[in-house]
């Protein structure tokens, strides 16, 4: 007991230190403006690396064989991580439910949950990187009666959004 009570101030000091440091970091994180957001940037740096690592791992063939099902959904050179921000910008969420996109809860068009598992786009085009990118750029070209407008999406943006959508239901 004597030892335990001797340890008590030390334990108190350590806990106080931990609480102050953790509290300080959380306060920095909560109050920072985007320009001074050191903690937030550190967190997102780790998050981005972690996501890349996870995506890379998930797309690896487990038995040495190339997993064609996954591979054929890859959009070469696209940055899937840009997807959510782009889809907010183009207003996809006003018609579609899209997992991971803030405020995307529209019910005008179909939900895009697990979109990577979809066989057809809009019941017309076979789902895949190329067709999806083309579809996003100009839907009425493929489905003249569709309600989905041509939103003036650039090629690059379309690829990034396609990459994000195709990953839904696979490893996202």
């Amino acid at each position: 007991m004597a030892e335990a009570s001797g340890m008590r101030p030390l334990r108190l000091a350590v806990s106080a230190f931990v609480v102050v440091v953790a509290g300080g970091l959380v306060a920095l994180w909560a109050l920072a403006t985007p320009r001074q957001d050191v903690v937030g940037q550190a967190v997102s740096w780790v998050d981005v690396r972690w996501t890349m690592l996870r995506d890379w791992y998930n797309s690896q063939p487990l038995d040495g064989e190339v997993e064609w099902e996954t591979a054929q959904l890859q959009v070469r050179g696209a940055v899937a991580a840009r997807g959510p921000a782009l889809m907010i910008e183009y207003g996809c969420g006003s018609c579609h439910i899209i997992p991971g996109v803030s405020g995307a809860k529209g019910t005008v068009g179909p939900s895009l949950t697990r979109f990577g598992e979809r066989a057809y786009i809009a019941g017309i085009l076979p789902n895949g990187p190329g067709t999806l990118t083309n579809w996003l750029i100009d839907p009425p070209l493929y489905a003249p009666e569709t309600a989905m407008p041509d939103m003036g999406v650039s090629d690059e943006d379309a690829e990034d959004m396609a990459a994000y959508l195709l990953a839904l239901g696979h490893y996202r």
Partner: protein
Amino acid sequence: MIDEESTLGQFGSQSALDAAGLGAELTLTLTTALHVAGALIFLSVMGALAWAWFRTTGARTWWIWAGGVAIPAGALVILVVGSTLTLAAIRAGGENATIIDVRGYQFWWDVTYDPTGDPVRDGNEIFLPLGEPVTFRLTSEDVIHSFWIPSISGKMDMIPGRVNELTVTANELGRFRGQCAEFCGLSHPLMAFEVVVVTPEEFRAFVADLRNEARDPDTIALRQGRDVFMNAGCAACHAIRGEAEGGVLGPDLSRVGARASLGAGMWPMNVGNLAGWIADVQDMKPGANMPSYNHLTGPELRAVAHYLDSLK
């Protein structure tokens, strides 16, 4: 593709701590002073408490006179004087102000420039001339709303049957976000607007330009869109200068495509959001007075969305 960067997602665009107008700047100074004084008083009282906790010296009646009466009274006099001077400074200099009428509706804002001369309507986006006083005449057509642009000035309620005046001076170019601050029903959280501070010359050019007729549709597709707009009955509530000027129940759409945001400051303005909005308003903004136009065919919906997007 996005013409104007909206204030959506812009850190500090709706913050009283990022002051960009006379009222907000003066109030921010007052706020800082109040918080510093408040923190000092708080620490003193807690210090007195800690002292009393650890000592058993007995108490003196003068403590009450000092801590309970004299010091608070002194602080209050300073506070009242400071706050009254700030109030006077905020209210000063509104004599030759430009007048803009803003009427609150569930859940959008009807803006009228030059109401005393040649009135011209717009909605959900307000242009202000840099450095010049502007007096908003605020009222409401249904329930109580509150007009608040934190970066520019404090808030003022919009009350049916009354006209409240609020004079502001914007001191920084740029875009700021305003929002309804008085609970006004189902979509109260979705009732915001954008404020665009431009140079006085640009401001006058903007108002002059607003008087011109809306751009004529110059392609077949856009003309189809205009036909849908007319046939579907949109014009009963919405006005487009030069095309249909009767509708007053909804926002004026003469330059809708030029606005940075849709749905009273809630979504980026683009064809995608316009189409989703027209097809399912009641999902995007529950309780709005506009019905969901989900009886339009796909091509009709696209055409009208493109047409509205082209109105700049």
